């Protein structure tokens, strides 16, 4: 039977881990994700999970342990944040290149320098070309739900691609929320038994993992890897739907909030979307026809679906919680603007960078953005394509 529990973001992930009980868990402490590992350690010590729990000497080693265990045929996971994910960089590409369906909970945090422990998306956005599926969560409930679904998506035989689930540092990881924790057995059944493909522990077949691959076949193998993540959309859709049927909370690639008759739209991911919903409600009361589009899956990027949802808007503001220095806009913006390019009728799209290093974004800030959108929609002119929210300049 599902129960209501008061948990913070880190604990919700640990709770899902307890229910799924992967074969190997390897992680190194880093703020703000440490409590995930600590809670798992406690579960292990209390005999509530049977999986191996390893404390390696760094995140690079943690991901290496995951890759070794996954190659052996295990269902494996890790949790990290910020510099920890950055230190895993080399191994992220290897996990994806070897098609090992490793699951990582990433508590989104800014990158040094300057050093800062608070939330933004610089870490996972920096890993956007590593070949991992990326799913973002607005709150603790979504973090729990996404984490459970991640196993089904990553391990699907057509996909076989590592998957990370992002939740915002401190804002979600350390905030208590009442969440619906589903029944252990039903979660286990939903996730299902893991069927490894080519496990090294299958001694009847002898093969090597990770040998050198030069000009002869490297390209084909990379193409094959890309196919894995390209196969993910129908799986993500199916798993989200099934999750809804089973637990009453269905998921797609993004959430649309009061978009039915909207003329302008704010696009924002993760925890800030919750604040944005409040802003939208207030603006609606003022008679503004504005909506929110909250992307959930960033990789694979649901380009057509998002473009379809946005094409009839007059103006769209894409808010990124990370910067891409020197690029034509931050990651989410470039993807969305690019996705709209082929449409004859398309909205004006502007980009705002917000919340770096955990800087607050409040209802009034979304209202400022909405005001700008109104101006753009009214005049058809964009003064500044790229700007910042709540920044001293």
């Amino acid at each position, binding site marked *: 039977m599902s129960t209501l529990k008061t948990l913070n973001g880190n604990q919700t992930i640990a709770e899902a881990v307890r229910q799924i009980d992967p074969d190997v868990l390897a992680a*190194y*402490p*880093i*703020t703000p994700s*440490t*409590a995930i*590992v*600590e809670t798992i*350690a*406690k579960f292990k*010590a209390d005999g509530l999970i049977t999986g191996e*729990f390893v*404390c390696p*000497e*760094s995140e690079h080693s943690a991901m290496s342990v995951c890759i070794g265990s996954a190659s052996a045929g295990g269902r494996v996971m890790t949790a990290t944040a910020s*510099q920890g994910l950055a230190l895993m960089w080399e191994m992220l590409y290897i996990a994806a290149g070897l098609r090992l369906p490793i699951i990582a909970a990433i508590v989104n945090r800014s990158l*040094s320098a300057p*050093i800062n422990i608070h939330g933004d998306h610089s870490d996972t956005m920096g890993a956007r070309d590593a070949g991992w599926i990326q799913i973002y969560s607005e709150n603790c409930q979504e973090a729990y739900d996404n984490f459970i679904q991640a196993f089904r998506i990553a391990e699907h035989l057509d996909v076989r691609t590592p998957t990370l689930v992002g939740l915002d540092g401190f804002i979600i990881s350390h905030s208590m929320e009442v969440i619906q924790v589903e029944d252990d057995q039903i979660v286990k059944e939903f996730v299902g038994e893991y069927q490894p493909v080519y496990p090294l522990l299958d001694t009847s077949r002898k093969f090597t993992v990770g040998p050198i691959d030069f000009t002869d076949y490297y390209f084909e193998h990379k193409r094959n890897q890309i196919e894995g993540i390209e196969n993910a959309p129908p799986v993500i859709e199916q798993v989200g739907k099934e999750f809804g049927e089973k637990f009453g909370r269905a998921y797609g690639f993004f959430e649309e909030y009061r978009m039915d008759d909207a003329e302008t739209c704010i696009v924002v991911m993760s925890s800030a979307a919750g604040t944005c919903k409040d802003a939208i409600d207030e603006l609606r009361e003022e008679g503004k026809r504005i909506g929110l589009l909250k992307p959930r899956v960033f990789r694979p990027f649901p380009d057509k679906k998002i473009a379809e949802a946005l094409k009839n808007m007059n103006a769209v503001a894409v808010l990124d919680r990370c910067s891409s220095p020197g690029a034509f806009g931050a990651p989410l913006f470039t993807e969305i603007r690019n996705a709209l390019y082929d449409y004859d009728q398309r909205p004006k799209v502007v980009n705002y960078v917000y919340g770096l290093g955990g800087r607050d974004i409040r209802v009034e800030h979304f209202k400022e953005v909405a005001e700008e959108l109104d101006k753009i929609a009214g005049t058809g002119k964009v003064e500044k394509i790229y700007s910042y929210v709540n920044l001293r300049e």
Partner: protein
Amino acid sequence: MKKEDRLESKNPMEGFLRMDRIPHIWCPGCGIGTVVTSFTEALKKSKLDLDKVAVVSGIGCTGRVAGYVKLDSFHTTHGRAVPFATGLKLANPDLKVVVFSGDGDIFGIGGNHFIHAARRNMDILIICVNNFNYAMTGGQVAATTPMEANASTAPYGNFEFAFSLPYLAEAAGATYVARWTSLHLRRVTKSIQEALAKPGFSLIEVITPCVTLYARRNRLGDGLNLLKYYYDKSVIEHGADTRTLDISYQGKLVVGKFVDKEKPTFLDRMNEHMTKILGDKYVKYGE
């Protein structure tokens, strides 16, 4: 009382600290401040030109030292204090470079860098505050956690072998190795003073209380209880064989100066070798 009649209220360490950063973040009973006091005392006594002393720290509780000392300092990423110090020393061999960081930083995530800097005999001094756990992140099991001790990621006790830092340092090639506890204030000061005067790779390990996490989780009382433990269980054995220096949970703590030997530093070797190869064409670096 007139203002000028009042006792001088200036802290004797003021000249060495960035007072605008004080109060510091360390917990009551923590030993890091004690080690910083020893360090500043040693600097005073060594009469080094403070413009020629640089402090490098990694991440962690001890990592904050770089932010508090009024010297050229650098707060690097987790584990990378030693390679950063290597670069600093090589770019400006006039500097006395001190790495001031914790056990998790230097021997956990940065362990590889430590052994290689020792192998090369880089002319840097490592002051390692060993509090037996990753304290900044909440007391997780570390490479130095004694067997059987509890940690947040080893709630029913650690079952892994711990590093013996002096043994590791000597085996890797360090030319000066000492271990003290934060109770041995004057001895720590003297060791730092000695090591500052000595070229080559030096390690001074200082065992300190982590009251909030290690002590609390292991029900060892407060800072005073741990200092009492150091008082009761530490034995000074200068020159002890570093193979015998393992630390067991609440067991004997052998302290002292274990290694103090002469060996050419990285730059000595480089200059000697390149002169041999290139003869007069080679201009010696850093001399």
